[in-house]
């Protein structure tokens, strides 16, 4: 396989993972108006929990689901117990999430040690599938398919259900949604649980590709941040498009201009913030 194809395959895979991570981040940002700086930590903690579940003998899928459930509880707890106390004070909430990310990183170091933990690809998914003329590694293909399925499910949830309509109302205009009787604070908890669960799930799914190591949180959080700024906060299509743009920029930037890789990554975010602060699909500036 040529270098270009390999890069493209990796880019699409990373795009899928990033979507799983940033969809929740985007909804939280859109609804609560805060960048949740613990989101990278949710990804890492989820991945570490996944390795523990794997060690207990669960297979990767069950481990991912169990880890997602655990992260949903942790995320909900953080929202109810800490962020709720600071309702309306966006800056204080951001600072709390920043402090929490320090704490989670240190807890992970304490519990799982400093050595990277590699995760095996499930036995049935180790081969490659030929699609047209491209040979696509099966596991990577599965990640992309899962991302697409999750995107579709989230879209149905947001666009076709009562809960989704309430979330959209909250993103558009939270005070007005409150007046019509929607309990926006309960939506906060739901969206926070959902975002944390997706991040934890993505962490486990990413394990076989990225492995799990201290500092994974700091690697993933900026990527999620760029995706959401690029796509627009609270917008699902924005998160999807942004994820794949960043997936490509990251892999091609690393390969072609390794010395400037981070500049290539952050420049689009900066341009968007300066020129079109609401992002490609967003409705509000952050």
């Amino acid at each position, binding site marked *: 396989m040529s270098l270009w194809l390999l890069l493209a395959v990796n880019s699409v895979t990373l795009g899928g993972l990033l979507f799983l991570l940033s969809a929740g981040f985007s909804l939280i940002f859109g609804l609560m108006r805060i960048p949740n700086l613990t989101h990278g930590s949710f990804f890492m903690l989820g991945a570490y929990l996944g390795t523990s579940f794997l060690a207990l003998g669960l297979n990767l899928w069950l481990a991912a689901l169990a880890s997602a459930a655990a992260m949903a509880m942790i995320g909900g707890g953080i929202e109810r117990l800490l962020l709720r106390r600071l309702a309306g004070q966006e800056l204080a909430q951001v*600072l709390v999430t*920043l402090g929490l990310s320090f704490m989670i990183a240190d807890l992970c170091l304490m519990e799982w040690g400093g050595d990277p933990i590699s995760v095996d690809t499930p036995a049935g998914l180790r081969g490659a599938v030929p699609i047209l003329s491209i040979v696509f590694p099966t596991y990577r293909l599965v990640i992309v398919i899962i991302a697409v399925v999750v995107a579709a499910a989230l879209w149905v949830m947001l666009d076709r259900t009562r809960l989704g309509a309430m979330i959209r109302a909250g993103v558009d205009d939270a005070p007005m949604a409150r007046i019509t009787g929607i309990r926006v604070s309960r939506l906060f908890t739901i969206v926070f649980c959902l975002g944390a669960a997706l991040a934890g799930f993505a962490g486990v799914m990413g394990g076989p590709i990225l492995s799990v190591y201290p500092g994974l949180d700091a690697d993933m959080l900026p990527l999620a941040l760029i995706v959401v700024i690029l796509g627009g906060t609270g917008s699902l299509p924005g998160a999807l498009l942004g994820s794949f743009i960043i997936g490509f920029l990251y892999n091609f930037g690393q390969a072609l201009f390794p010395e400037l890789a981070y500049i290539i990554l952050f420049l689009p975010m900066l341009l968007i913030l300066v020129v079109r602060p609401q992002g490609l699909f967003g409705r509000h500036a952050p």
Partner: protein
Amino acid sequence: MRKAIVLVLALLALATVPYWIGNGYYVNIASQILIWAILALGLNVLVGHAGLVSLGHAGLFGVAAYAAAWLVAGGWGHLPAALVALAMIIATSAVFAVLALRATGIGFLMITLALGQILWGVAYRWIGLTGGDNGINVPSRPAPFGISLTFSTPFYYFTLAVFLLAVVAMAVFVRSPFGASLKGTRDQPRRMTALGYNVWLIRFLAFLFSGFWSGVAGLLFCYYNQFVSPNVLALGSSAEALLMVISGGSGTLLGPIAGAALVVVMKNVASAYIERWNFLLGAIFVAIVIFMPEGLVPGTVRLWRWAWSGLRGGRAAALLRAGDGTVR
């Protein structure tokens, strides 16, 4: 009068640190506290007085450190290297300010975060320029007026001199009409515009002032460690600087200094006894934001006054409760 006595006592205590501490290790920690306090004071101009929370100040700090280290390692003298580094920090701050001041609040925080990450990426990845993870070694410390700063005590006095300069600059700045107008842009930007002030320009100049002192701290840091690496510019450093400002009490003169002391002591002294100081740091951060949002110094002052007036009887306490407890 009482204030003057406290001031003289504080100065005396600072000036005699090497004599009553004795051990060179602790003198070095005192120097570190002063260096970080300068960064925190610089950041406080934006966070406390302008109401703009920046998560990119480690980038500014790092630019000055890297510029000086790079030039000195390349054979430049210390004085021209320091001057070029300070000129660079002003230029970088200006670019930061122009981009970041398109927003306020969360937007400002995120733009500064992105800019800080870009600088970190340059330091980490542009190996041809910055040496990447290996960092840059600085062969020697400067020797102003022929006094060698190699040992801990002279270096402490050098740092103390710069620190006092920073404190005086901050005190003058806060009391100046410009400082007052900056606070005006924090509290009532629209009214300030209506009164004919150029809000953007005021914030821009405040950013330059803040960036300048962050750069000065970066220079001192480069001399102190005689080494810079990308770690200095990482998001964690920016977060630590912000923690210093907020934990001590943003918008006060003493707060950022106390915050810097708290964080440095935690990092260096407590880490010898407690393994999980990073966890503790995060926990303190969260606790302060939730329970003492005004910071340790104003918070303690408030509690102390409240207890004091409680001892002396009701009237003063009643006044305090009525909202007269202006914290200075």
